[in-house]
């Protein structure tokens, strides 16, 4: 199964990844092929494993306040701040549509 331009565009929107060039797309296709090998195994009646941690115990923490109070440190990461708030653009800035952005995916 070929990975279509629509799917690549969709992935770039959702994950904000940049496949950059056809080499990136090839790597993706190889990864899908690799994962598709799973279909060769008959898994009828087998409960899917979704975590290698399934045998581990989920540790439960006591409800105590043990962290926080580090405003200054956290704000060191802020490009811009206003009175101890992080500053962000007014809303999500969506990735421009395929036709409108500079991407190798155009004209394929």
């Amino acid at each position, binding site marked *: 199964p070929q990975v279509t331009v629509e799917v690549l565009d969709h992935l770039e929107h959702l994950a904000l990844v940049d496949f950059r060039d056809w080499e990136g797309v090839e790597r993706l296709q190889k990864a899908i092929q690799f994962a598709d090998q799973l279909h060769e195994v008959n898994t009828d009646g087998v409960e899917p494993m979704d975590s290698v941690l399934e045998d581990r*115990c989920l540790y439960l*923490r*006591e409800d105590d306040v043990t962290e*926080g109070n580090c405003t200054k440190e956290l704000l060191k990461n802020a490009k811009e701040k206003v009175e101890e*708030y*992080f500053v962000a653009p007014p809303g999500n800035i969506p990735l421009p549509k395929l036709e409108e952005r500079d991407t190798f995916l155009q004209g394929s």
Partner: protein
Amino acid sequence: LAPWLPVVGLEIHAQISSNSKLFSGSQVQFSAPPNSVVSFFDASLPGTLPVLNRRCVEAAVMTGLALNCSINKKSLFDRKHYFYADLPAGYQITQQRVPIAVNGSLSYSLCIDNKMSQMVTKTVRIKQIQLEQDSGKSLHDDTRSQTLVDLNRAGVGLMEVVMEPDMCCGEEAAAAVRELQLILQTLGSSQAVMAEGQLRVDANVSVHHPGEPYGVRTEVKNINSMRFLAKAVDYEIQRQIEELENGGTILNETRAFDSKLGCTVPMRDKEGKQDYRFMPEPNLPPLILYDAKSLPANMNHQQVVNIDWIHERLPDLPSVKRAKLVEQYGILPEHSFTLLNEDGLTEFFENVVKQTQMKPKKVIGWILKDLLSYLKQHSLTVKESPVSPFLLADLLNLLEKKQISSTAAKQVLTELWKGEGKTPLEIVKEKKLELIQDQQELEQICQAVIDGQENEVIMMVLG
């Protein structure tokens, strides 16, 4: 014109009442200075991991049991991905595949035609309850075209309660949410104060003709109070009906309720269907809960959440409290609703009953008609009442002993509201409101009246 059947479902987010957050040890604190109760994990700094708070698990189990749910002994955590400035990780940890509780129900009551005397009981199915993280808060500054982000709320534990579309109007939705709020407050799993954002409701609304399939639904968000919930739902139902009757179509979209205009408007930033790319949370193993039977022998007590242990310790739910009040005091069911609806009123009532000889059936009238209406008129809570249970009981005793008439009692109560510290007896003496019990004295008064109105008496006797 074929009738329309509105269909309303609800997604309710209740903030868990806990000291620290769902997956980190920072404090849960409303109105703290911006970004002061934020841990490195909440800010999504690399190298941090989620660690589940046991209290949050217990809160969710309590709530599930109170809503008659099946508790899943094994539940899983997932990541729900979307980009927004107040979600630093770019995903929310939630329970999409297997939540902690499923298939419950909630019973609530409605007054028919606004008459308290006719109450009807309805049930709404609870699809599921899931544990998930709250996001931070965005403050939109339109003048400077920027958003200010405060992560204090990021990571606070939420219980999302999903109610099936069994409701048909704003009134039912509001009544169901009110009952859920009372249950959560009784359990203590959430303080559920809507004004502080501890209880948030999103409504899913659609309309269709009887016998036809369900219509396209819209999601209504940004409902900030119980009052607005009913309004928003009813507005949206009307809007959809009018749109369809004018030959239009309903878009599967998210709309926000504008409380100033009293209408719903499409929300920007929510165009198109969202693809959340759900995936298992790789850093958390399955959450295993135990009961008396499955309890492992040698496990650390602190690591175990025992469903049966929690079940045994559930307090009386509102419905049970109401039934007990009706049985114990002989009051009407609708009275019990009002008692539970006002914070502190049940306690007030019971304290008065303890201190007076008047029958509870009579006391309730004074509580609901005289006390409550006064408090409402002056926007006071029960705790702020200038008349204490002791004073009211004192007054009602005078009435019971027939030392004063009921009209006089109401006069005394009016004086007591002033909160001048006088006792009922002092006011009675001051205003000379005592009932005259002496037969002779009464005869003298009647005779004096008759003597003073001779002509009228003669006219009456002659017929």
